[in-house]
Each structure stands twice: as structure tokens, then as C-alpha cells.
């Protein structure tokens, strides 16, 4: 029956033309009555599939086996009766779901790949299965339009719908956006597959609608497939508009993309036809994002430029495309040397109207492509691999990234103008508070101060890096410390008061909020964009004389009193004593830094300091040799007449929520007690009362504490020990402002 159906279908397609669309539309409007009309017509069948539910809740659908002309077509039947299928259906609720018959065939017959954005209806007819070797997970299934079936891919975006079985076998989908591609196969016609980007689930029924068949050779060419006027441009033939643009399509194999495809439209309201075809030509130059199509594979662009694909539409299921984009960033060649692999790579960031994407060239392509790409220039790029992006290496906002391989074609585009220069999403400095650490932002600012180049040893892996700190300000009235690294820091030569646009700055919480420019970020001085001019104007008028708010807070590391400075956001890391105990700070593997505001309630003064080696850079404890009166340091292997005492004592600090013990070392000790350890030890020896008085004087003073909490194991006991890295007397003005904000937030 199926074979006969196919044959009949073939004949039917050759038969007299009926405006099938009108039929289906009318049938929708008038209900089943039109099914009767269709039935009496000769060659067309309405592909109206319905599920009728009567009061009993049973769904009824009967195959019209007697109706040989309507092979495989199910029509309405009266409840329980076998009667004439032309009779109306009575019944309370009728779900009419109409699959878009012929759609899949049309996809198949169209040459090249395309993106379809007009909705059409298909049914999932196979179980939905996981697609192998895909991360994130994607699914595959067969879909049918009632007549033909095709492989479809459901990408990870729609995964939840599959997981909770909203999309399952026999689900009817309204596909709002998809890409249709053909995968070339050896010795076989190319395989059609549809990647469903956006779809709505209409309902899930219990069986397959219609009698869809697989696409075969006979479905190719499609010369006989007549579509009503609106679809003339949809690609089965060779409308004249295509001819001048590119070569007319070869009859087969269909998978060689040669020209543009208009996305086929189901609805009447599509504006196809002549009007579209002619405007098609003029759109070849455009990169309007909704315009999608196949890239030309011809390498020469001396003539009309090939049609381009918007970057935002790139996906791994589509591998024949061309993009036209500007290189906004190009990294230097980096090499890696692991035991398992070595190689070199460089990356570029590509930008067009629709979005950004990162592209990387490895080993072999590095030499070929590195000289080709120049930052700021626009290129046509095609035939690179689209892969999932490795987010850790890139801050580009795209889930995919490109890998340039041997087949990748890169050409300079002669027309540089149409592509945007650089896409910024500027964030005012005042709102940095709301971004978490490691968030990436763009900032437009005026350079206020530049520090000297400094050397930093990274705490994590002991690498040495050069760094330069800047202070930047903007219209929001805030100033922030920004750090540059490596080459950027070394070659920095921007005069103060110039406007700088930073892209891809990382937010840090180093005592508040700081910004840092990673290697993937970029910096443009005095960019020629309207926002920069506006900022310059503001600075000249007001900004120069303004005093800026800074993110207050503490720096890590215990330089005496200086560690806690201005310019960082203190609040973000400020905790109350209650929070310290509640959050189990420091119980993890790494040390945690935070800030406290509290009063010294008690100073444990029995062992205030230890004798330390006076040698340079050596703070090891020295032992007294009682016979000689010398103090010996084992590390330096020498003796000293007198030690250098260094503070080490604990203080109990309280605030209104609780209390905690902090350990103080020499720098903090000197600030707390106001005198050196040597003096205190001497005083303790000589005048105990005065010693006690000094301790008492230091007690009950209020400070900001910069704290470091760390888990330490000592004799089998693991405890969290908190030390005071630095302290700072309270700036009451700032504190008032902070408390006032806090009060306001309670209201």
C-alpha cells in the first residue's frame, strides 16, 4: 500500500494543479465540510488529520480504506459509523492539527542549506534518542510532515523538553526556526536533516499521522513539483534572480551550495515571489541578521560578494557558510608544551552585526593564517569548524567558537565599512558592586593616575609578572583601580586625562572592587565613538574637578597600615562576627580573606613577642645560649648579641554580633600597641605597671581589620585560625556614609 501510495503520489503530483493551500486554509475555516469538497476533487487530498474526541473521551479516527484514491489519508469519520467520509463529523471537541505536508519534500529538493524562520508543523514519529558524541547533549528523531519523513536534530537548548517528555514520540511541533542541511554521503544522495532551533509543542498524540515515507532519489530534482506562485522563488527551479549572482545550480548533487536560498514559507503572508527575488539581489551586500543562506564557495570576490551568514546563526550542524567579520582582537602566538601534546596557537575575535565569535588556529594553520589576520580589518571566512566554546579561554559571548582547519578560507574583504568596529557594553564604575568576582565587563573611563611598573610574584604558582596599576574614573562619580599586566603594562604610555575604552575587563574583589585587563581583553585609547566624546566633554567640564567616590576596603597582605587603603570596596567583604562563625569561614582548603569592623576587647599579653633573628629577611626564632648570652639562629647559622623581638599575640575582637580571636604579627602589633616589640619587652621587664597600662590603653579601640582565615592542623586538631593581616583606624566619615546606606536599605 505504501508503494502504491508513493506511486499514486507521484502521479498525483503530475496531475492537475489545485491550489492546495487554499484548500487547507478553507478547510480550517469551514471545518470538515471542505474535507468533503476535497474528497470529491480528483487529485488533491487535504492533509487534514484530526483527532476527534467524543464524550467518552475516546479518540476516534478511522482509516478510509475504501478510498483508494486517498492513499494513506485519514479522514474524519463519523462516530462509530463507516459511512461516507464526506459526511461531516459531529462531535464536541475537535483538535485540528495540520501537518505541513510537502514541506520536507521541499526542503529536500531545495539545493543548499538554509535557515527557515516561518513556522510549519511536523510530527515526531520516532523515539527521541540521544545524539552520540555531543556535548552538550542533543537529540535526534525522525519527523514527518504527513508525507515525508526526515531526520531532525533537537539541540541542547530544548533538552528540558525532551527530558520531561514534553517532546516525545508522536508529539506535534510547530517549528518556528530551524536550519535545514544536507549531509553529503558517498554514493548516495545527501541526507537531509533539520536542526530545530525554536519550536512549540502543540500536543502529543498517540499515533503517527498520515503515512510518511522516506525521501528517495525520486524525490530529487522536483521538476514536476509545482508550487503556487508564492513559492516560485523557493528554489526548486532556477529563478532568474539567481542567475546573475552565481552559477545556476547543478542538477545534482544537491549538497553543493552555490547560491542563496530563500527560506520557504508556509503561511500566506510570506512576501515571496517576484518582489522578493528582485530585492534579493540588492540584499547580497547586506549583512542583515535575519537574512540567512549559504556562503559561496568561490574564493574570488572580485565580483559580487558572496552571501554571508550572520555569526549569530553559526552552529555545529551547519558546515558550509561564509561570514564576513572584522577582527577585533588577535592574540599573539602562544605555544604549549605538555607531555601529551605540544603546539602553537593564536586566536582572533570576530565581530559582525549579529554577534561575536572566537576563532582559533592551531599548529599547521598558525603560520598560514597569522600573517593574514590584521586587527581591525574585515575578512570573509568560510569552512571553519564550529565547535562548542571553551569558556575558560575566551570571554566572547558565544556558546560556539571556530577552529580554523586546512579547508578554512580566509580572504580580505574589500568593503570594510559595513561591519561594526567594536561592540561595547559599557558599565558605569558605580555599578561594579553588583558584579561578582571574575565577571567580565566593558568600561569607558578617563585615566586619572598611572602607577609605576611593578613586579609581582603570583601567589598561586610563583610566576613573576609585571603589573601596572591605574586609577580610572567615569561619569558615575566613582574611581576604581585597574590593573594591566605583562606587555600591556610595560608598553603603557597613555597620558593622564585621556579617555580609554576597555573591553573584556575582569572584575575583582581584591578588597572591594578592582578591574583587571586579561590577555583576552583589549584597550582602545580615545576611541572615535560618541560615548567617548561625551565622556571627554564631561571630564573637561566637571570631572576634572570632581572628587570621586572610591570602593573602600582593604588590601590583602600586611603592610603596616598601608594594606588597607582607599580605592577598594570594603563593604563587599565586610562581615560581622556572627557571619564569621556562621559561615565557617576558612574551613575550606584555601585561605579566605574578609574584613571586619570591631573593637579590641582583650589583648592576651602573657607572651607578647618572640625573639627573632635580626638577620635580613629572617624572622626565625632564635634561642639563647645561656652560657654565652648569644642568641643563635639555626637558619642563618650565626649568633647575635641580642634578638629582635617581634610581636605575636592574640586579641579578642568584638562587634555587636559576636566576637572572634585574631592573631597579630609584628606589623599589626605595632599599630595596636603603638610601640615596637623590643620596647614592650623591655618595659615588661623593667616596669610592669607601665607595661600593663600600655596594654590597657590599646584595648577597647575600634578598627577595621583585614583578616585571613585558614584551616590549620596542629597535633591532629584542625582548626580555623584567623589572623589580622592589617588594621586601619576607622574613617568615620566613610563609615557614616556606609551605615547610612545600610539604614536606608532597611527602610
Amino acid at each position, binding site marked *: 500500500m505504501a508503494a502504491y501510495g508513493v506511486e499514486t503520489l507521484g502521479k498525483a503530483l503530475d496531475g492537475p494543479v489545485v491550489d492546495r493551500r487554499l484548500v487547507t486554509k478553507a478547510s480550517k475555516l469551514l471545518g470538515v465540510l471542505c474535507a468533503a469538497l476535497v474528497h470529491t476533487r480528483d487529485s488533491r487530498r487535504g492533509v487534514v488529520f484530526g483527532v476527534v474526541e467524543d464524550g467518552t473521551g475516546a479518540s476516534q479516527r478511522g482509516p478510509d480504506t475504501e478510498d483508494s484514491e486517498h492513499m494513506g489519508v485519514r479522514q474524519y469519520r463519523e462516530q462509530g459509523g463507516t459511512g461516507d467520509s464526506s459526511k461531516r463529523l459531529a462531535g464536541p471537541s475537535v483538535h485540528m492539527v495540520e501537518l505541513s505536508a510537502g514541506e520536507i519534500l521541499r526542503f529536500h529538493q531545495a539545493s543548499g542549506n538554509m535557515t527557515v524562520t516561518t513556522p510549519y508543523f511536523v510530527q515526531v514519529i520516532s523515539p527521541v534518542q540521544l545524539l552520540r558524541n555531543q556535548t552538550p547533549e542533543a537529540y535526534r528523531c525522525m519527523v514527518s510532515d504527513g508525507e515525508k519523513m526526515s531526520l531532525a536534530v533537537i539541540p541542547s537548548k530544548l533538552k528540558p523538553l525532551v527530558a520531561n517528555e514534553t517532546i516525545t514520540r508522536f508529539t506535534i511541533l510547530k517549528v518556528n526556526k530551524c536550519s535545514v542541511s544536507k549531509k553529503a554521503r558517498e554514493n548516495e544522495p545527501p541526507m537531509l536533516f533539520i536542526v530545530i532551533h525554536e519550536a512549540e509543542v502543540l500536543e502529543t498524540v498517540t499515533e503517527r499521522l498520515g503515512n510518511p515515507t522516506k525521501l528517495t532519489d525520486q524525490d530529487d530534482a522536483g521538476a514536476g513539483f509545482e508550487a503556487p506562485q508564492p513559492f516560485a522563488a523557493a528554489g526548486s527551479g532556477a529563478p532568474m534572480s539567481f542567475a546573475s549572482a552565481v552559477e545556476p545550480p547543478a542538477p545534482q548533487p544537491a549538497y553543493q551550495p552555490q547560491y542563496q536560498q530563500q527560506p520557504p514559507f508556509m503561511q500566506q503572508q510570506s512576501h515571496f515571489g517576484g518582489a522578493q527575488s528582485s530585492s534579493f539581489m540588492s540584499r547580497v551586500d547586506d549583512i542583515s541578521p535575519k537574512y540567512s543562506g549559504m556562503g559561496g564557495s568561490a574564493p574570488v570576490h572580485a565580483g559580487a560578494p558572496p552571501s554571508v551568514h550572520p555569526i549569530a546563526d553559526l552552529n555545529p550542524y551547519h558546515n558550509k557558510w561564509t561570514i564576513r567579520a572584522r577582527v577585533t582582537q588577535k592574540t599573539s602566538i602562544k605555544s604549549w608544551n605538555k607531555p601529551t601534546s605540544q603546539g602553537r596557537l593564536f586566536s582572533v575575535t570576530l565581530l559582525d552585526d549579529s554577534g561575536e565569535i572566537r576563532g582559533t588556529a592551531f599548529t599547521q594553520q598558525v603560520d598560514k593564517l597569522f600573517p593574514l589576520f590584521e586587527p581591525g580589518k574585515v575578512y570573509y571566512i568560510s569552512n571553519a569548524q564550529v565547535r562548542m566554546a571553551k569558556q575558560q579561554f575566551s570571554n566572547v559571548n558565544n556558546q560556539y567558537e571556530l577552529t580554523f582547519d586546512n579547508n578554512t578560507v580566509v580572504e580580505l574583504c574589500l568593503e570594510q565599512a559595513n561591519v561594526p568596529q567594536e561592540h561595547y557594553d559599557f558599565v558605569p564604575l558605580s555599578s561594579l558592586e553588583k558584579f561578582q568576582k571574575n565577571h567580565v565587563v566593558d568600561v569607558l573611563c578617563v585615566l586619572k593616575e598611572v602607577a609605576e611598573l611593578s613586579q609581582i610574584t603570583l601567589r598561586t604558582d610563583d610566576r613573576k609578572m609585571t603589573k601596572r596599576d591605574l586609577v580610572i574614573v567615569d561619569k558615575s562619580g566613582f574611581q576604581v583601580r585597574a590593573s594591566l599586566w605583562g606587555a600591556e603594562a610595560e608598553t603603557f604610555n597613555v597620558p593622564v586625562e585621556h579617555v580609554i575604552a576597555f573591553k573584556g575587563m575582569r572584575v575583582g574583589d581584591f578588597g572591594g572592587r578592582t578591574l583587571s585587563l586579561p590577555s583576552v581583553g583589549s584597550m582602545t585609547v580615545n576611541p572615535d565613538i560618541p560615548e567617548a566624546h561625551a565622556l571627554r566633554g564631561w571630564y573637561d567640564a566637571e570631572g576634572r574637578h570632581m572628587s570621586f567616590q572610591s570602593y573602600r576596603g582593604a588590601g590583602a597582605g600586611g603592610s603596616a597600615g598601608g594594606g588597607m587603603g582607599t580605592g577598594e570596596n570594603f563593604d563587599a567583604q565586610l562581615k560581622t562576627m556572627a557571619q564569621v562563625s556562621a559561615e565557617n569561614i576558612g574551613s575550606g582548603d584555601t585561605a579566605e580573606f574578609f574584613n571586619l569592623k570591631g573593637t579590641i576587647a582583650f589583648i592576651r599579653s602573657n607572651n607578647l613577642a618572640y625573639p627573632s633573628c635580626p638577620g635580613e629577611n629572617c624572622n626565625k626564632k632564635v634561642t639563647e645560649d645561656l652560657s654565652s648570652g648569644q642568641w643563635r639562629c639555626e637558619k642563618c647559622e650565626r649568633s647575635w648579641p641580642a634578638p629582635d623581638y617581634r610581636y605575636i599575640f592574640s586579641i579578642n575582637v568584638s562587634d555587636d554580633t559576636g566576637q572572634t580571636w585574631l592573631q597579630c604579627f609584628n606589623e599589626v602589633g605595632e599599630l595596636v600597641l603603638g610601640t615596637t616589640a623590643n620596647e614592650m619587652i623591655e618595659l615588661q621587664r623593667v616596669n610592669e605597671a607601665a607595661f600593663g597600662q600600655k596594654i590597657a590603653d590599646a584595648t577597647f579601640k575600634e578598627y577595621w581589620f583585614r583578616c585571613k582565615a585558614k584551616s590549620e592542623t596542629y597535633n591532629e586538631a584542625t582548626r580555623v585560625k584567623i589572623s589580622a593581616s592589617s588594621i586601619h583606624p576607622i574613617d568615620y566619615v566613610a563609615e557614616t556614609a556606609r551605615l547610612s546606606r545600610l*539604614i*536606608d536599605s532597611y527602610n
Partner: protein
Amino acid sequence: MDKPTPRITASMIQQHAGTTVRIVGRIVRSQGSGFIIETSDGNTVLVNPTVECTYSANFIELLGKVQGDGTVSGFTAVDLSDNFDLKAYGLFESAAQKCPALFA
């Protein structure tokens, strides 16, 4: 102080006519036998100090009685040194105004 003395700013003078109030502000200049004080909201009040009311700093806290004509007769003043942030104090005042029970 045996009775509550609300802390007010210059703009609130009229509401407190006849009552004893506290005003914290900056001394702008002398005027006749008295002086002009500027409060955190930027407005000013004319103060006529009594004999016991002495001051030597730029910022003071004044205790006085509001006269019918909008001037204040100053009873005593407390020096607040010259290192005083009036704006920060203003923040406190507006917060205090919201909780009169705490600051009566």
C-alpha cells in the same frame, strides 16, 4: 538636660518655634552680636548667644531656644573641632528623624 531637645536643621526652625533645640552646624560668619550657623541641609540660622554661650571652633553643637522671629537664642555651645564632616552628620540626622523614639 531635663527635657528632650530635638536635633534640627535650619529648615526645621519654624516648626519648633518656642522650643529648645539642638543645632549642629558650621559657623559662617559673625553678625552683630551673634553669628550665622549653617546646618547640614545648607540653610542658615541666626544665633544670638547669651553670655555663657562661648565657642571657639568652626563646628559647634548649639543648644538654644527658637524665637518667634526665626532666630535662636543660644544657651550653650559645644565645640566640635574643625575636622567635622557636616554632610556625614546630615546623613545621621535624616536617619534619626525616622526614628524619633531613639533620639527624643
